[in-house]
């Protein structure tokens, strides 16, 4: 059974730190929550999409006339019906035309049909005639960077960025040991449980689009730009997503629905099948990572040179993997050079998935650190404690953004950090010192079963100034109930609940009085996309200030009623009272329902705030994960037995939500490490396992709970000076340390280094076979046993 760890902080706070149920829990347990797939309109048509069978091809001729003539078909669109211009996702996960005559991956949209029902729409797709000319394609990222490789994107195949600081040559010259380490990770897919849909309706020249997205305002802005409409002529109404993990942003299918509905003159619903969700939207950017790490004999890092190639697939546009690994190991000021290469290939678009570069690059870096520690006779805890950054240390990862903007780098430093607590408290909770037997040493051997322990660390941003400036509105009704309006996307992370908790704390009323409206672009203020773990820290700042603004107005009213100066009043738990004389009080609702002497009715109280992060301080979350697992050397099967996730997320708003985030991070991280891998057809690049049947995600029996197992999340005592009530963020970071911790535990269990997850039974059995044959199971030639 999962244990509940005590939660520090939240002293004197009424709502922050409480295990408040999810605001939409009732709708979720009764099945009444409306995801986009559940939404429909009267007279609505449905859409189906025709997709390219080729990895790379040119459409020489396309004819939809027979499809359009079919009874029940209202419209068909091809590249001839949409603008040529490429649309750009604000977070650079997509650059491409809505449709084009040169589809660049198998599964890319070629045409779409709107009809009265799905059977008619599917029949119409079969009537579309296309004459193809196949073009050369490239799937492997290291092949795609070679000169002469088939050109995928309009801008070439490679996007580059560099983060550097200090003299790399000197750094390596000062090193007593240099570790070189390369990894290739498998291909993870977001694999959402909930599907998605876009329902588009035009009324005159106004488009309304219902969908489930993390990026309602970015979708609104992109649609407006693409369609040449003002922003008040495009309305996105956001529904919660059935998990997203980075998949449902501003996606190409949204644009298809808008064009189809306009041509059909009726509302159109484009609902994706599971195969389309898995194989045609986006996947995690698949990396090839190479690191050189220079160290002193005592374990001090002197230089890090990282080369990170990551797959953008057919339409990704990222030059940079959104990482903080380049900041994490700056405690001893090593010289650093981090080179990033975003590479286009003829596979389905790749981009962000929960954890991004801090998962993929973190894996490689953690493995290099492990090799160094073993060579130097250090344990995994002490080498990390010696080198990680602390509050006040400089941050360089955003430097290239300023360079690109031609702006001077302001000099950034870390606002708070408690990775040391995560490592030490996590180790204590895990009973690390009892279980750790040394590098490559199993904790226990029982016949064919070998147990090992592993740990790893990571960091991740908590939003970012560059994402944009969140605004929030808090509206107090006459009866004292409260509405909160934000632009956050809901994907199961509980942002509606945590934002309400922040606002309730600031306003001094129970959280139960709050109702939220999130991501309706006609009624809510603009917000950054729900990416980069933005909400609790960055959006929360605006939420707190909006509630403070509402509170000020309530106190002014109360001051009039009670004939007291507003600054002498306070609000707690729904009661307005005179400071120092709590018996002189009025219920909050009595103040808000007072007939105003001038306005006659009670005045509407509208608190608002627009706030962004400061320029020179940056908050980061930190985490250290500990894993104990058992490998069966007869079958290659791995079972995780124990897990501790120790997190520094600043003040914890809602421990239950944060624990769920940690467990979810484990699920994705351990899935990436052990089972999850997309398989592509060698000829066409088509995804061969776009289903839960063939793409194996972890289930309840894979979680380390039950007899002899334990799974727990614990939180460091850390107050961030920037975040509301000291809050940082948690969501993405929870995935990041897991693959490296699993890899280290496997090494300790088996004495075999495994560099390329997923560590499937087949891979483990092959490694064991090579071990028996006396070969090193890894290719890097470092300190194996």
């Amino acid at each position: 059974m999962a244990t509940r760890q005590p939660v520090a902080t939240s002293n004197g706070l009424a709502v922050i730190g409480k295990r408040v149920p999810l605001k939409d829990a009732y709708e979720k347990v009764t099945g009444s929550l409306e995801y986009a797939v559940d939404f429909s309109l009267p007279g609505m048509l449905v859409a189906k999409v025709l997709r390219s069978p080729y990895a790379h091809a040119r459409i020489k001729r396309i004819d939809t006339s027979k499809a359009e003539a079919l009874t029940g078909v209202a419209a068909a669109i091809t590249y001839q019906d949409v603008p040529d211009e490429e649309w750009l996702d604000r977070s650079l996960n997509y650059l491409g035309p809505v449709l084009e005559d040169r589809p660049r991956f198998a599964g890319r949209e070629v045409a779409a049909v709107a009809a009265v029902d799905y059977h008619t729409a599917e029949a119409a797709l079969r009537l579309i005639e296309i004459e193809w000319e196949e073009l050369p394609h490239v799937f492997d990222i290291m092949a795609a960077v070679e000169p002469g490789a088939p050109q995928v994107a309009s801008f070439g195949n490679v996007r580059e960025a560099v983060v550097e600081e200090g003299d790399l040559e000197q750094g390596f010259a000062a090193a007593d040991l240099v570790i070189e380490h390369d990894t290739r990770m498998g291909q993870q897919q977001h694999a959402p449980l909930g599907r998605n849909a876009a329902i588009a309706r035009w009324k005159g020249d106004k488009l309304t689009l219902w969908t489930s997205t993390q990026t309602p305002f970015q979708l609104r802005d992109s649609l407006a730009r693409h369609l040449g409409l003002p922003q008040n002529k495009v309305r996105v109404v956001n529904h919660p997503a059935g998990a997203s993990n980075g998949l449902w942003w501003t996606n190409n299918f949204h644009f298809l629905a808008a064009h189809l509905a306009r041509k059909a003159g009726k509302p159109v619903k484009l609902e994706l099948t599971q195969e389309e969700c898995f194989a045609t939207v986006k996947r995690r950017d698949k990396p090839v990572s190479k690191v050189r790490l220079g160290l002193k004999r005592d374990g001090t890092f002197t230089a890090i040179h990282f080369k990170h190639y990551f797959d953008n697939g057919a339409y990704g546009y990222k030059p940079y993997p959104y990482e903080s690994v380049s900041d994490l190991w700056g405690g001893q000021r090593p010289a650093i050079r981090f080179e990033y290469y975003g590479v286009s290939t003829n596979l389905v678009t790749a981009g962000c998935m929960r954890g991004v570069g801090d998962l993929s690059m973190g894996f490689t870096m953690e493995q290099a650190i492990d090799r160094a520690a073993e060579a130097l006779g250090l344990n995994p805890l002490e080498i990390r404690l010696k080198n990680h950054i602390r509050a006040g240390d400089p941050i360089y990862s955003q430097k290239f953004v300023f360079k690109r903007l031609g702006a001077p780098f302001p000099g950034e430093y870390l606002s708070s950090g408690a990775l040391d607590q995560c490592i030490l408290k996590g180790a204590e909770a895990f009973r690390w010192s009892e279980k750790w037997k040394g590098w490559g040493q199993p904790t226990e051997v029982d016949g064919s079963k070998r147990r090992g322990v592993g740990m790893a660390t990571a960091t991740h941003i908590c939003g970012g100034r560059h994402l944009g400036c969140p605004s929030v509105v808090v509206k107090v009704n006459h009866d004292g109930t409260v509405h909160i309006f934000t632009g956050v996307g809901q994907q199961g992370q509980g942002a509606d609940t945590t934002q309400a908790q922040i606002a309730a704390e600031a306003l001094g009323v129970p959280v139960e009085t709050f109702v939220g409206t999130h991501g309706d672009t006609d009624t809510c203020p603009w917000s950054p996309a729900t990416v980069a773990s933005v909400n609790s820290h960055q959006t929360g700042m605006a939420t707190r200030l909006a509630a403070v603004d509402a509170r000020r107005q309530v106190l002014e009213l109360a001051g009039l009623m009670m004939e007291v100066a507003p600054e002498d009043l306070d609000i707690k738990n729904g009661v307005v009272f005179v400071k120092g004389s709590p018996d002189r009080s009025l219920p909050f609702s009595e103040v808000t329902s007072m007939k105003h002497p001038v306005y006659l009715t009670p005045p509407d109280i509208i608190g608002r705030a627009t706030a962004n992060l400061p320029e020179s301080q940056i908050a980061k979350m930190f985490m250290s994960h500990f894993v104990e697992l058992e490998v069966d050397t007869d079958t290659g099967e791995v079972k995780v037995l124990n897990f501790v996730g120790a997190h520094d997320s600043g003040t914890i708003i809602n421990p239950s939500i944060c624990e769920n985030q940690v467990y979810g991070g484990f699920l994705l991280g351990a899935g990436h490490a052990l089972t999850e891998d997309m398989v592509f057809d060698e000829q066409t690049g088509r995804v061969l396992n776009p289903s839960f049947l063939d793409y194996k995600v972890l289930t309840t029996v894979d979680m380390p709970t039950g007899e002899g197992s334990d799974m727990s999340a614990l939180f460091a005592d850390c107050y961030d000076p920037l975040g509301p009530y000291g809050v940082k963020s948690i969501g993405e970071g929870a995935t990041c340390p897991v693959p490296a911790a699993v890899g280290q535990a496997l090494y300790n269990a088996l004495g075999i280094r495994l560099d390329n997850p997923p560590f499937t039974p087949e891979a483990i059995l092959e490694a064991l076979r090579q071990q028996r044959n006396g070969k090193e199971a890894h290719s890097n030639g470092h300190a194996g046993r």
Partner: protein
Amino acid sequence: MAERIELRVNDRNQVVEVEPFTTLAECLRNQLGLIGVRVSCNQGDCGACTILVDGQPVNACMELAIEAEGRSVTTIEGLARNGHLHPIQQAFVEHHGMQCGFCTPGMIMVARALLESNPAPTEQEVKEALVGNICRCGSYPKIITSVLSAAQTMREG
């Protein structure tokens, strides 16, 4: 050719017109508006659409609507009575046995069937009962806690 059939859904008789190939999930969602029957994989891999047919959990996406004629169907919408949540639903709320909520109705329906036949399951029995239900948010530990807590509440009556 569409066919008129009678179904008993959440203790009410319903008449629907379905094609021979209409799945029970499609019928419940599209004709009866029971959107708590969540459809994800549509091929029996994920458990999101789990409902009870004559008390037994089945994947509604794998049953044809016409096969359910004359049988008793319970969906998540049939669990709460007079606005009062079933103890399993209440436990999921209290213990955060969910994140995005897409798997939640399926999880609760499997738990309902489990606790009917085994009112005092062990943690391992709960895990095994839920093995066909995918939660991509990884809420499993709190889902298990919710089911065990509900079992206790229901035993204490």
